[in-house]
C-alpha cells in the first residue's frame, strides 16, 4: 500500500525505549489515517477511565495517507489524539504546515507516546534514528523560541518542530501544540497532555521519497485542484481570509459578543476582515503543497504593540475581540501573539477571558480577586494582562488556566451559567441560539463545542434551512456532514479547502485510490467516516459521557438573544434540543440514549467494541 509509510513508532517516555511496529493494513483501510486512525490507536492502547494527565494516557500523533504528497493541503497535515483533559472524552486537534510532510518522509504514519520522562525531554526523529534528548535548555520557552533553539542545537534548519509553551508545561487544560511558529493543534488541551509527559517538543527530519500508486493520474488530479483553488471555491481564503466572517456573521446577528450577552457587535466595522487586511496583513503565506494559501500574517506597524506579528483567523479574532467586547485590532493581534507565545488555544483563552469579564461585571469576581486587573468588557489592556496570568498560571491565572468549566466550578456562585462551553470545551464564534443546526452539531460533537466537527453551520449561515427552527431532518444533515468531515480530518485535508472538493466523497475516494493503489469507493469512504464517528462515540461512552453531555451552554438555552434585529428572542429550549438529539440519534442508528446499537456496530464491522458501550 503506497501513501502510508507502513510504520508506527511507539515511544515509552518512562523507560526511554522506542519500538517500531507495522501499521496493520486493515486499520489503514478502515480508519484511513489522521483522527480516525489516531482514535483507533488510542482506544486500543488505553484503559477505561485513564486520567488524561497521567503517564498511562497515550498521546497519539497521526498522519494521513496523503501526507507528504503534492496534493494541495492534503500533503501537509498532522493530528494529535488523546483523552482530553478539558472534556474527559476524545481529544483531537489537527494542524497544518510542513511538520506532517516531514514526519511522513521520516517513514512514520503515527507515533504513540506513553509514560512520562523523569525530566524535560524532546523527541528527535532523524529518519530511522530516534533519540530522546534533554530539553532543559528550552523548558520555559515559547514554541517559536523552542523551534529556533532546537534547529540551532541540531544544526539543520530544515528540521520541523511541534512544541508546547509554558501553558503546556504547566498542564493548562487550554494549552495547545504549536508547529512552524504560528500553526496550532489548538483544541481540547492536548498541550497539557504533552506537558504531563515532560515532552517539550517533537523534532523531525525525514529524507525518504514519497511515491504514489498512480503518479500520472495523480499529478493530473493535483493540476485540476490547483485550477479549482484559483476559482470561487477558494476565493474567500485567498482574499480576506476567514476573517471575512466578522461582517457576514455580524449582519446575521450570529456573532456572539461580550460572552453571549449580545449576538451583534456594534463596533464590528473596526475589527472587520476588511480593516485587518487593509491595515495589518503584511503577507499571506502557504502551508506545504497548498495552492490556495490562506495564512494571513498580521503585523502591527505602530503604537504600543509595534512589531507584533500573529496569524489571524476568524476564531482567534472573534474570541479575543468581539467576544471580549474589544474593538482594537492591534490589541487583538497582540493577544493572539501572546497566546502563541504561551502555547494557549486562542479560542478557549478568549472565551475564558470573556467569562472573567462577565463575572466581574456581574459582581461575581471582585477587583481584588482579579489582582487589580480591571476586567471590564472592552478593556484591551485587561485582555492582555489576563493572558499573561493564564499563560504563567500566576495569581488569578492559576484558576483560569484550565478553562471556563473548571474556573466556574472553583468560583461557584452560579458562575457556571456564564461559562460558554460544551463538554468542558469552550465554544467557537457562532451564536448557537440562532443557528439551530449548528447548535445540534455542537451539542453532539465528540470533542465538545465545535462548529467544524459537523460543518452543519454552512446550512444555517447560507440559508439552506430555516436557522431558527428546530425540526426533524437536521439530525441527518449533521450526521452526513459529520461523516464527511471525519474523512477530511483523517485523510487530513484542510477544512478551508473543503469547497474545492466539488464531489466531496467521490473526490476523496479517487484521491485515496490514486495515492494508495487500493480501490476505494465513495460508499466505502462514507462508511469509514461513519465508523470513525462511532469509534469516537464508543470512546466517549467508555470514558463515562452520556446523552446528558450532548447539551448546550446555559445562556444558549436560557438567555434569549436580546439585540433588536432578525433573531431577537432566539433561544434553544430543552424541548427543541431533545427533539434534535432524538432526530440525530435516529439518523445515526443509535438508541435514544445515544448508544450505538449492536446492529450498527456490526454493519460497520466494529462489533468488537460492543462491550464498551
Amino acid at each position, binding site marked *: 500500500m503506497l501513501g502510508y509509510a507502513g510504520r508506527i513508532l511507539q515511544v515509552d517516555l518512562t523507560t526511554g525505549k522506542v519500538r517500531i511496529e507495522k501499521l496493520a493494513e486493515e486499520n489503514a483501510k478502515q480508519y484511513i489515517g489522521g483522527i480516525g486512525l489516531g482514535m483507533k490507536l488510542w482506544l486500543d492502547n488505553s484503559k477505561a477511565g485513564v486520567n488524561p494527565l497521567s503517564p498511562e494516557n497515550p498521546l497519539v500523533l497521526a498522519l494521513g495517507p496523503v501526507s*507528504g*504528497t*503534492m496534493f*494541495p493541503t492534503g*500533503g501537509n497535515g498532522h493530528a494529535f489524539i488523546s483523552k482530553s483533559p478539558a472534556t474527559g472524552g476524545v481529544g483531537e486537534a489537527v494542524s497544518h504546515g*510542513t511538520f506532517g510532510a516531514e514526519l511522513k*518522509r521520516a517513514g512514520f504514519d503515527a507515533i504513540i507516546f506513553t509514560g512520562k520522562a523523569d525530566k524535560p525531554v524532546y523527541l528527535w526523529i532523524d529518519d530511522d534514528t530516534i533519540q530522546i534528548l534533554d530539553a532543559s535548555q528550552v523548558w520555559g520557552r515559547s514554541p517559536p523560541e523552542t523551534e529556533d533553539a532546537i534547529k540551532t542545537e541540531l544544526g539543520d534548519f*530544515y528540521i520541523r518542530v511541534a512544541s508546547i509553551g509554558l501553558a503546556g508545561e504547566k498542564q493548562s487544560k487550554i494549552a495547545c501544540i504549536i508547529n512552524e*511558529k*504560528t500553526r496550532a493543534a489548538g483544541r481540547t488541551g492536548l498541550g497539557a497532555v504533552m506537558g504531563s509527559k515532560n515532552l517539550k517538543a517533537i523534532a523531525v527530519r525525514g*529524507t*525518504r*521519497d*514519497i*511515491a*504514489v500508486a498512480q*503518479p500520472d493520474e495523480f*499529478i493530473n488530479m493535483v493540476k485540476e485542484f*490547483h485550477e479549482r*483553488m*484559483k476559482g470561487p471555491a477558494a476565493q474567500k481564503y485567498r482574499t480576506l481570509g476567514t476573517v471575512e466572517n466578522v461582517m457576514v456573521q455580524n449582519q446575521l446577528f450570529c456573532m456572539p459578543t461580550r460572552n453571549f450577552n449580545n449576538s451583534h457587535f456594534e463596533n464590528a466595522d473596526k475589527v472587520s476582515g476588511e480593516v485587518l487586511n487593509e491595515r495589518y496583513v*503584511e*503577507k*499571506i*503565506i*502557504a*502551508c*506545504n*503543497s*497548498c*495552492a*490556495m*494559501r490562506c495564512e494571513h*500574517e498580521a*503585523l502591527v506597524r505602530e503604537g504600543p504593540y509595534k512589531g507584533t*506579528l500573529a*496569524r489571524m483567523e476568524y476564531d482567534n479574532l472573534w474570541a479575543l475581540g468581539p467576544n471580549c467586547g474589544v474593538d482594537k485590532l492591534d490589541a487583538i493581534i497582540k493577544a493572539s501573539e501572546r497566546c502563541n507565545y504561551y502555547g494557549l488555544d486562542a479560542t478557549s483563552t478568549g472565551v475564558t477571558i470573556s467569562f472573567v469579564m462577565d463575572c466581574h461585571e456581574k459582581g461575581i469576581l471582585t477587583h481584588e480577586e482579579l489582582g487589580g486587573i480591571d476586567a471590564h468588557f472592552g478593556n484591551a489592556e485587561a485582555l492582555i494582562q489576563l493572558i499573561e496570568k493564564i499563560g504563567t498560571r500566576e495569581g488569578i491565572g492559576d484558576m483560569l488556566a484550565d478553562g471556563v468549566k473548571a474556573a466556574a466550578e472553583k468560583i461557584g456562585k452560579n458562575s457556571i451559567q456564564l461559562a460558554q462551553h460544551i463538554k468542558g470545551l469552550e465554544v467557537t464564534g457562532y451564536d448557537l441560539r440562532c443557528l439551530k443546526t449548528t447548535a445540534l452539531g455542537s451539542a453532539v460533537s465528540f470533542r465538545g463545542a465545535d462548529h467544524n466537527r459537523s460543518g452543519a453551520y454552512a446550512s444555517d449561515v447560507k440559508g439552506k434551512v430555516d436557522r431558527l427552527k428546530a425540526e426533524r431532518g437536521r439530525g441527518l444533515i449533521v450526521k452526513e456532514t459529520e461523516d464527511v468531515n471525519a474523512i477530511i480530518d483523517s485523510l487530513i485535508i484542510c477544512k478551508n479547502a473543503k469547497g474545492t472538493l466539488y464531489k466531496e466523497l467521490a473526490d476523496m475516494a479517487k484521491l485515496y485510490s490514486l495515492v494508495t493503489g487500493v480501490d476505494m469507493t465513495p460508499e466505502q469512504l462514507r462508511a469509514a467516516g461513519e465508523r470513525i464517528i462511532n469509534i469516537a462515540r464508543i470512546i466517549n461512552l467508555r470514558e463515562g459521557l452520556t446523552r446528558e453531555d450532548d447539551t448546550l451552554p446555559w445562556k444558549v438555552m436560557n438567555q434569549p438573544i436580546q439585540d433588536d434585529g432578525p433573531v431577537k428572542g432566539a433561544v434553544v429550549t430543552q424541548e427543541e434540543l431533545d427533539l434534535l438529539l432524538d432526530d440525530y440519534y435516529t439518523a445515526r442508528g443509535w438508541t435514544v440514549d445515544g448508544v450505538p446499537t449492536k446492529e450498527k456496530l456490526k454493519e460497520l464491522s466494529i462489533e468488537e467494541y460492543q462491550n464498551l458501550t
Partner: protein
Amino acid sequence: MVKLHQRKFISADPEKCVGCQICEYACSFNKEKVFNPLKSRIRVVRVNQTANMAVTCRLCEDPACVAACPRDALSQDPTTGSIVLDKDKCNGCGWCIEACDYGAMMLHPETKVVYVCDLCKDKPDGPQCVKWCPEEALTVVTSDVLAQKARIGAIKKLFQEKEEKQ
C-alpha cells in the same frame, strides 16, 4: 556589436512567493517521479513568517562552482549558460557546494554526485517549477529584464511620491 545577455535563469519574486514548496515537489516529481524536496533543484527558504523565497541556480557570468571544481567536472554551457556536470568526473567532494553563494549546488542523496537546475532542458514547455507555481512568483528571466523591472519599480515609486506631495 554589443549584445544583450541571453542567459535566462529562474528568479523568484519575494513579494509573491508564499513558501508553499510546490516548486520543490514539481521539480522532484518531474526529474525523479517522487515527491521529495531533497531531490529538488529549487529550494524554498522561510526565514520568518513574512520572508519566503525559492532559490535556484542563477547561471552566474563567472560561476564560482565551475571554478571551484578540482576535477573539472563542471562546465558552463556557452549558449544557455546552465551548469553542466560530467557525472563520471564528480566524486561528490562538495567544493562547488561551498563555493556557490546561493545554495544552488546540492549533493544528490542517492547518486552521490552534485546536481543543479538545468532549466528542464528536455521539456518543451520549459521549467516545470515555473509552470506549476500557483502564485506566478517564478519567472524565467535575463538579468537585463530584472534590472528593467527594478528600474521601472523605482521610478514608479518616485513619481507616486511626487504626486502624493503635490
